[in-house]
């Protein structure tokens, strides 16, 4: 039995390792005594004032929180059997723990020497319970499957509870991860890494890696070509026993009224627009032709009269001979109508000759008296078919002096 003190400032994960040679001296418990030189193991300072410094404590707490976040966010990466990130985190936690303010007190129960030979480490368990603020660390000794006793009690007194709480939280997360990692190792055969799986899938789908790839972890470089997922789907289809979806080969017969309605509406719209467009031009044309026709006619007749008079200015032209068209009564009426315009405008004058028959002659330009002091007489000429024929017979008119107009293209 040595007097050496057993002191473990260890981390809980290493408790399994340190429990091997457990034999120790009985030490009285002095939980409240921080100045005890035996308990220096906690940290370089070991004494109250510095550890109570709120800034330092805040620092420690924030570092703990960072570690906790790190574990939570990068859970998948930590599970990767290829790296030791979990161990790194625990080492960080170790440092915080060691540099912190947590004191350890040990109590060892007296172990009878004669039973030492039966000591056999069967199990070792350590847990941290924030509420109880101490660890119980014990080893079971068995002889012939008979539990002889429980030895070894380590009392951990935690002074700064908040930091301990964070440490506990970190520990829970880390042990959870550790458990998963261990299960990966314990599993027969290879582990399955979803990240590697994703990488292989990307290669299969034909990922185009950019040439200047930096190759950092988690950096999503490259782009998937078109039809990448179809490619994967085509290969994956073999794994499925999917029944092909039922569809009629030629489509189903479904009479749908809406599309035809649209077509009809569109067609209706178009003609109406064009019709509207046509209408004004048509009207315009008609009006113009109507006016034009009359004016043109009048001018033409004046031209005829003037040309006749130019040929023979001495001989007067009989009015009747001039207007009557022996071949068409309606033509005759039109001629009378147009000639009346000429007379109205003062371009032509009508007079009675020695026989009392009306004659017609163009008005010379000099004869026109401006101011309209000319005495105007009005008369009405009527004619019917019977008198028209009588005049033709009487004057023996063979042909029209006013030639028939060209047929207008209306």
């Amino acid at each position, binding site marked *: 039995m040595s007097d050496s003190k057993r002191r473990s400032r260890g981390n809980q994960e290493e408790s399994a390792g340190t429990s091997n040679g457990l034999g120790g001296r009985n030490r009285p418990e002095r939980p409240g005594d921080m100045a005890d030189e035996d308990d220096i193991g906690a940290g370089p300072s070991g004494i109250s004032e510095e550890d109570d410094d709120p800034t330092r404590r805040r620092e420690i707490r924030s570092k703990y929180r960072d570690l906790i976040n790190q574990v939570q966010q990068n*859970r*998948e990466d930590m599970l990767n059997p290829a790296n030791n990130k979990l161990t790194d985190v625990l080492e960080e936690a170790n440092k915080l723990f060691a540099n912190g303010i947590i004191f350890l007190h040990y109590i060892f129960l007296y172990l009878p020497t004669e039973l030492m030979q039966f000591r056999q480490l069967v199990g070792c368990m350590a847990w941290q319970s924030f509420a109880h603020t101490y660890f119980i660390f014990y080893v079971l000794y068995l002889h012939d499957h008979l539990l002889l006793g429980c030895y070894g009690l380590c009392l951990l007194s935690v002074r700064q509870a908040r930091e301990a709480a964070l440490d506990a939280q970190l520990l829970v997360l880390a042990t959870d991860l550790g458990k998963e990692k261990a299960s990966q190792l314990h*599993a*027969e*055969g*290879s582990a*399955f890494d*979803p*990240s*590697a*799986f*994703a*990488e*292989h*899938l*990307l290669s*299969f789908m034909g990922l185009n890696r950019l040439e200047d790839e930096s190759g950092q972890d988690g950096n*999503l470089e490259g*782009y*998937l070509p078109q039809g990448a*997922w*179809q*490619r*994967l*789907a*085509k*290969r*994956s*289809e*073999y*794994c*499925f*026993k*999917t*029944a*092909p*979806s*039922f*569809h009629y080969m030629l489509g189903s017969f479904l009479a749908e009224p809406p599309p035809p309605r649209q077509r009809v509406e569109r067609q209706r719209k178009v003609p109406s627009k064009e019709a509207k467009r046509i209408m004004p031009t048509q009207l315009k044309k008609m009006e113009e032709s109507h006016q034009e026709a009359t004016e043109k006619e009048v001018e033409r007749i004046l031209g005829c009269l003037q040309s006749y008079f130019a040929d023979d200015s001495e001989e007067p032209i009989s009015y009747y001979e001039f207007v009557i068209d022996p071949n068409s009564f309606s033509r005759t009426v039109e001629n009378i109508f147009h000639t009346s315009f000429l007379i109205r405008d003062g371009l032509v004058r009508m007079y009675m000759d020695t026989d009392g028959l009306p004659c017609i002659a163009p008005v010379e330009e000099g004869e026109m008296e401006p101011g309209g002091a000319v005495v105007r007489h009005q008369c009405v000429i009527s004619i019917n078919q019977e008198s028209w024929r009588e005049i033709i017979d009487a004057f023996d008119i063979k042909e029209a002096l006013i030639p028939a107009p060209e047929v207008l293209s209306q």
Partner: protein
Amino acid sequence: MSIHFVSVSCVYYSQGSIAMSQKKKAVSASQNKTQRRSQVCLDEDDEDAHFSQITSSQVQRAREHFTPVQIDRKVAEVVQFILIKDQKKIPIRRADIGKHVIKEYKGIYTEIMNRVCRTFEQVFGLQLVEIDPKNHIYILINKLEPIHGEPVSMRPGNPKTGLLFVILSVIFMKGGVIKENLVWNTLKKLRVDPGEKHDEFGDVKKVVTDEFVRQKYLEYVKIPHTEPVEYEFRWGLRAEKEVSKLKLLEFVGELFGQDPQSWTQQFREASTAETSSQRT
């Protein structure tokens, strides 16, 4: 006769509700399965019992009441109903078949369904499988094995099949249950972000947690006592029947360049699943 029919169906459906409440007490998926299996036998016996009860009087009368031509037509109608319903890949409930198609032919329901199954197998090469014996839900699967080297269908691959394959493989290779974060993280590495709209899949989260779940390819279950709420993914009932674990493992092996047998646990599970499905 009609009153008797009503009473039969009432008893039958109350059986179903008792079975459902029993199901809710089950904790894990595997426990569920064994319970379902044992209760399948129970349920089928009861059903047979009911049907045998009515066989003596009702079925005889039903057979006499309907001509063979009418029964033929009813079978054809059920086949068509199931084919159309299967287009969306949402499992078909027996209650729907009864309500919309079979109606007054309920007495000879078993006979009709037997002929329907035979028609599917012999005419279409499809199998009508009951994935949920409790609630009597059916799916259609392909009876024909795909030939390697030849395309499965002439149509271009549906990208959602690829997405589904990724999720199902991760779940299977990780032991059958995974937390939802693992799925989202893996998909992110494949440039599929559930938070963003994807070119091919649109609202990825909806496709995975709603569409695939309704089609019974996946199960999306809440983990109890978690704050904030977390969900886990498992294989759905349709996936169990429709997906060959062995073929899936083979493809995973191809991708990794590894022998599928190197994943011993998964290989064992896949082999047992294959033999049991071949037995049915």
